[in-house]
């Protein structure tokens, strides 16, 4: 798997969700609502013999409105639901990819991130991605 191609493919698929700005790598600044495909926590090589398969855990961060806004909660919930037009899991797992073989959204963690002095509600998605090792 080519890391850049994987990050581009994931970002491209998320970009099919209307109204969500997508960054295929961590940007210098962003305007919510936005999704950022970040760098993997790790890449595991040699999951099978002769470079047959590699595997990575790729984080995607979705940032919406102010943490104190109820509207931000509702908006983030739409991205975090297991199904629906704005479901990150449903959209990503229904994609067809050439940069890798399989993708599964494993879990979501929630956090508050500070951008430009404002606290924004954020969801951190962990993606389990496997593909050709060569």
């Amino acid at each position, binding site marked *: 798997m080519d890391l850049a191609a994987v990050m581009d493919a994931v970002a491209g698929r998320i970009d099919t969700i209307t109204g969500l700005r997508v960054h295929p790598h961590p940007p210098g600044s962003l305007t919510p609502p936005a999704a950022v495909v970040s760098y993997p926590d790790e890449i595991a090589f040699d*999951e*099978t*013999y*002769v470079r*047959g*398969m590699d595997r990575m855990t790729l984080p995607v961060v979705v940032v919406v409105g102010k943490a104190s806004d109820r509207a931000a909660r509702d908006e983030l919930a739409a991205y975090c639901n297991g199904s629906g037009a704005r479901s990150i899991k449903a959209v990503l797992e229904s994609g067809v990819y050439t940069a890798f073989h399989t993708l599964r959204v494993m879990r979501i963690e929630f956090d508050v991130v500070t951008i430009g002095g404002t606290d924004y509600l954020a969801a951190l998605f962990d993606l389990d991605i496997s593909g050709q090792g060569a």
Partner: protein
Amino acid sequence: MFVHGKSTVITVNAVDLSAFTNTSNFGRKADKHDVTTYGKNDHVYAGGLGDGAFSMAGVYDNGVAGPRDTLEPLVGTVITCIRKPEGTGSGLPQDSFSALLEEYVETNPVADMVSWQATFQPSDAVTSTNQA
């Protein structure tokens, strides 16, 4: 020198399954016969017929040269297996043998990749050579 397992190559019925395999076991053994006679204070043994065991397992792939399409139709048949424990290269060891494919199993965990495993019974002699 120590040798890493990642370069192992295994071919079954002329299909290279290495890229879908992440573990394998190959063992050889022999029967033993107790030939102890009167007057001995300890058992005395003689070697008998050779035997062996072979198994492999890995990550499922739905391609035509993947483990399912390759192995499932062969369950119950004797086929040729080639094992290169240090990978492909001139002078590296290679075991070639016929084996009965006894079992092919697929496992589907809810939160992980589909996996497979196959168990073989080696049949007749094993030819161990160095690769040309």
